[in-house]
């Protein structure tokens, strides 16, 4: 799987660098208008676009077919792509934490709790969107999967709102904001893992030619 991840990294390298620099610059810029920590909502989502660049490149170059002839199983290929998605999301969070850290040191109002809250929201949206769009990238052609990719972020926002409303029936959300979004994050992570299992199962039976 290491070789497959390295290939993804080579393909997405320039995109990852641009996204990381943009997030740091945006973090400083945004701090004049909003709480700097709010960038953590956007950062993981923005940084995962590189995964879809690598999926499109794999399909375009017929790497998908070539790699299946190598000592890499189909589950490793799918697992590699899901891992790459999580790695990029975490790297996005780390990039966004840089301006937050600098601003916190210079006296800005950045609390650990707000970082956890915004980070949970951002990661939840990212995992839900990935859970929807990643399997579709292997089921549909590149054009359709790009549409699904864009729609998945809107869908993930809707799912988060629905989950929060549901949790509000069980616990008073306004009084337990962080706990609520930690539960949402756990559910999103479970959904992401389930999506990975489904994608592996579907891909095992899929003709690649």
């Amino acid at each position, binding site marked *: 799987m*290491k*070789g*497959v991840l*390295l*290939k993804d990294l*080579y*393909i997405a390298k320039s995109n990852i660098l641009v996204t990381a620099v943009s997030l740091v610059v945006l973090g400083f810029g945004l701090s004049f208008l909003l709480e700097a920590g709010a960038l953590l909502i956007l950062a993981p989502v923005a940084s995962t676009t590189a995964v879809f660049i690598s999926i499109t*490149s*794999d399909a*375009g*170059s*017929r*790497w998908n*077919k*070539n790699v*299946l*002839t*190598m*000592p*890499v*199983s189909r589950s490793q290929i799918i697992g590699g792509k899901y891992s790459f998605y999580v790695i990029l999301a975490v790297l996005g969070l780390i990039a966004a934490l840089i301006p937050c850290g600098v601003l916190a040191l210079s006296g800005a109002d950045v609390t650990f709790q707000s970082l956890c809250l915004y980070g949970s929201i951002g990661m939840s949206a990212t995992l839900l969107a990935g859970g929807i769009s990643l399997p579709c990238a292997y089921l549909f052609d590149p054009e359709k999967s790009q549409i699904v990719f864009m729609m998945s972020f809107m869908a993930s926002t809707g799912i988060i709102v629905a989950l929060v409303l549901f949790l509000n029936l069980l616990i008073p959300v306004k009084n337990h904001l962080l706990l609520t979004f930690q539960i949402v994050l756990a559910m999103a992570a479970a959904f992401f893992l389930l999506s990975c299992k489904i994608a592996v199962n579907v891909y095992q*039976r899929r*003709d*690649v*030619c």
Partner: protein
Amino acid sequence: MKNALTVTGLTKTYPDFTLDHVTFNVPNGSIVGLVGENGAGKSTTVNAVLGLIQRDSGHVSILGAEEPDNAVKEQIGVVFDGSNYPEILSPGKINRIMKHIYHSWDEQDFSRLLKQFSLPRDKPIKQFSKGMKMKLAVSAALSHHPRLLILDEATSGLDPIVRDDILDMLLDFVQDEDHSILVSSHITSDLEKIADYIVFIHEGKVVFSKPKDELTEQYGIIKCGAAQFDALDKSDIIVYRRMDYEWQILISDRQKMQKKYPKAMIVPATIDEMMLLYVKGEK
């Protein structure tokens, strides 16, 4: 183990095409050429052999394994038409990636092959010509010391010089008796140069699977007129084709037929001519 690859009754059905009970072997130490016109089922056969597509029925035994696991795949080198590597990568980056994919990846061998083919190490593949891409794909396929090499239309679209370079490399590879090659191509002249066995596929079915020498040394074409054609024993005819000014009849034993029909003009048949007669002729 006698065969590097055994394909038995391989069947795959699509709405508009059926690969129908394809059966052939690739004996150890040999080169088997899979020939047939475009759309005959060569690539479908290769894809099914490699497990890229699910087969409806039939068996494939590849290096002794029914379902090739990673250990078996380690011993198989595959080259498709085109490089099949992301074009942003360079040979140097491919080397670093493959090092982590194949346990048996030989960096020195890869560098030697790049040098032999005059391929730049740090240039992205997108700047390569088609010939360079194919040479890179062959270099990558050979650099993990495979025992079985599978090439699907790997020489199509290449100029004769590049094709010759690649064919030389294949002949060199098979010098080791434990090495075998399955090569699919519609360029029959390439296969005539290197193949030990020819498997001819037409409309998803294996028409024949024979040693190349038997085909080139024994098969022949009778060129005659209508009266001579009528006088022929029809059981001697494999296929025939009526041309503008003559009849062409494919026969399986030139010498025997020459004795039987001493006045007939019998010429050796190339694989190309056999393919044409099978595809366009009548039985």
